[in-house]
């Protein structure tokens, strides 16, 4: 044994077994887990790239032999519901035109609510907030029908704006909570300083709070975009076929069977519908995680 100081026994870096039993177990388990979670995505993608004969002959785990994009084209632009054969594309644009105002409106309202609750408490504000949070847990079914009546009374039933209002209402508890917690976590002294500097309710909101809150707005946006995009129940009840969002359109296309069930088209349609939230998810990375953790942990 050669060393500078002629020491005997263990010295220096402790040798590590790369392939220790624990590590094999650990990574083995993770591999199995990753497989389970990825499997459906793999099946969706491969099925959507196969032709129907190949699907009938082979099994769902085989890679496609003849890759065809036909199902994607069909799902996007020609699949039929009744006489409307414009595929999911219509639902896509409907979803977009529902999404944009809903996200903007719900975030605008919830952020101001959260700000008022955090910094401008008034008599009863906590009571309303408690009701609001409690409302997040009321099953939607309880409120479904009365809301039809409410929307009728304000003349918004079946319109795009009706659905926007519904999304704003049901997004409000979680978003208000998110913003309230965030604004509460900001140093109180900042708010005091701004008041000494003569800024009012809106002045502080726009000039002091907003510029500091970009991350939380992004988080709220992620929550809302995925939530609203994925909505099915409100879309089916509060709109009409013209403005059905993509999830409803997807369910329609999959359930409008003409002749044979075209699994490849269905899977392509399913993937297309899932694409927007998936892209948001993969692009936003940590913020997404932060968003759902923030929305959830302080529930």
């Amino acid at each position, binding site marked *: 044994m050669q060393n500078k100081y002629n020491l005997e026994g263990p010295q220096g870096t402790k040798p590590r077994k790369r392939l220790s039993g624990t590590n094999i177990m650990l990574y083995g388990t993770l591999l199995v887990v990753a497989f389970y979670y990825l499997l459906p995505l793999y099946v969706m993608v491969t099925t959507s790239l196969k032709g129907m004969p190949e699907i009938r002959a082979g099994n769902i785990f085989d890679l496609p032999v003849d890759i065809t994009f036909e199902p994607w084209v069909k799902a996007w632009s020609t699949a039929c519901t009744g006489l409307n054969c414009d595929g999911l594309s219509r639902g896509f644009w409907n979803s977009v035109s529902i999404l944009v105002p809903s996200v903007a409106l719900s975030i605008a309202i919830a952020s101001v609510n959260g700000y008022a609750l955090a910094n401008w408490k008034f008599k009863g504000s906590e009571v309303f907030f408690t009701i609001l949070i409690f409302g997040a847990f009321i099953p939607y079914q309880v409120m479904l029908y009365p809301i039809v009546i409410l929307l009728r009374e304000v003349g918004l039933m079946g319109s795009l704006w009706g659905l926007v209002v519904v999304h704003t209402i049901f997004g409000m508890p979680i978003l208000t909570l998110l913003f309230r917690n965030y604004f509460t976590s900001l140093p109180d*002294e*900042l708010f*005091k*300083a*701004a008041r*000494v*500097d*003569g800024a009012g309710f809106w002045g502080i909101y726009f000039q*002091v709070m907003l*510029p500091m809150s970009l991350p939380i707005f992004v988080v709220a946006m992620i929550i809302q975009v995925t939530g609203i995009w994925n909505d099915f129940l409100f879309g089916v009840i509060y709109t009409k076929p013209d403005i059905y969002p993509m999830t409803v359109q997807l369910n329609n296309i999959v359930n409008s069977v003409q002749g044979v069930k075209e699994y490849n088209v269905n899977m392509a349609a399913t993937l297309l519908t899932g694409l927007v939230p998936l892209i948001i998810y993969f692009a936003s990375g940590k913020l997404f995680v932060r968003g759902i953790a923030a929305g959830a942990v302080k529930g």
Partner: protein
Amino acid sequence: MTSTSSVSIKHLDLSFGAVEVLKDLNLEIANGEFLVLLGASGCGKSTLLNCIAGLLDVTGGQIHIKGENVTWAEPSERGIGMVFQSYALYPQMSVEGNLSFGLKNAKLPKDEIKKRVQRAAEVLQMEDLLKRKPAALSGGQRQRVAIGRALVRDVDVFLFDEPLSNLDAKLRADLRVEIKRLHQQLHNTMIYVTHDQVEAMTLADRIAIMKDGLIQQLASPSEIYNKPANKYVADFIGSPSMNFFLGAVNTDGAPTFETAGQTIPLTGYEFVSSPAAGNAWMGIRPEHIVVGEAAEASDFKIDTSVEIVEPMGSDTVVWCEVMGERIRIRIDGQSSVEPGDTLRIGFDAARLSLFEKTTESRI
């Protein structure tokens, strides 16, 4: 209302629900005075400051600033500037933006804003920092900007809410001097909240010591140190804190204090009123107990055995037991005392503080 008062607080009450935080508080602060509100956390000192600033709504009483009743006025209308512990700089604005935000809200003309920002930057020696964001500043620089933000408002009353507590010891000492210099330069009224007695002693013209929403004593630093109004103030001010003995004042003949079989003559003690017999606390500060030759010359002397020695460089704190109490004695840092040594100590009656046993107020 006196015309010399800058800030005057009358019968102020504040309660949060059932919790009374401030109770019938009265305080007159003279023009150009540096007043420190001192107390342990939760004593109501910051609350009082927030009330003066208008950041908290009072439950009862009045607040006057510069002769005007501002009890219901908005913070920005009160002619105050405020500096916070956490600096509270707007993180997304440059230093210049931070300084000018309040002025813009007040809709001052552009060139006036520029002039004032420039002047504040000069006073605080931060001309070259104007374009930076707060994140790019050190703690000391940030607090200077925060002071600057109060400065540009050109106000008569400055409110400081523990402005140095977030800084490390050395910076704190530097900035303390700077605030003192600023006060000497500007002659504004300053109300300064802290829990640090060194800051209070060094900065204040007067100190208000608060406990449980009440002012315990409002006096100059030296009076507070030498003649604490009650046992709480006596205990709170001074480090290490005062030693106390429980005993009784005897007025048969020359007044004496008797405890643990010892009789301490009180001949040199300045009683608040004529001495009365009864149970009382006797307090003596560690630095007022002398040893060695000086002890021999004292009004009262006694032998004691050293238990623990804490050398601190400039001086040494010695712990020993005297008359049934464990006490601290501050002696010169160069003296060589070892645990187990016998030490002769003594003190003068003039240096003592006596407090009535139940009310704990000075007698």
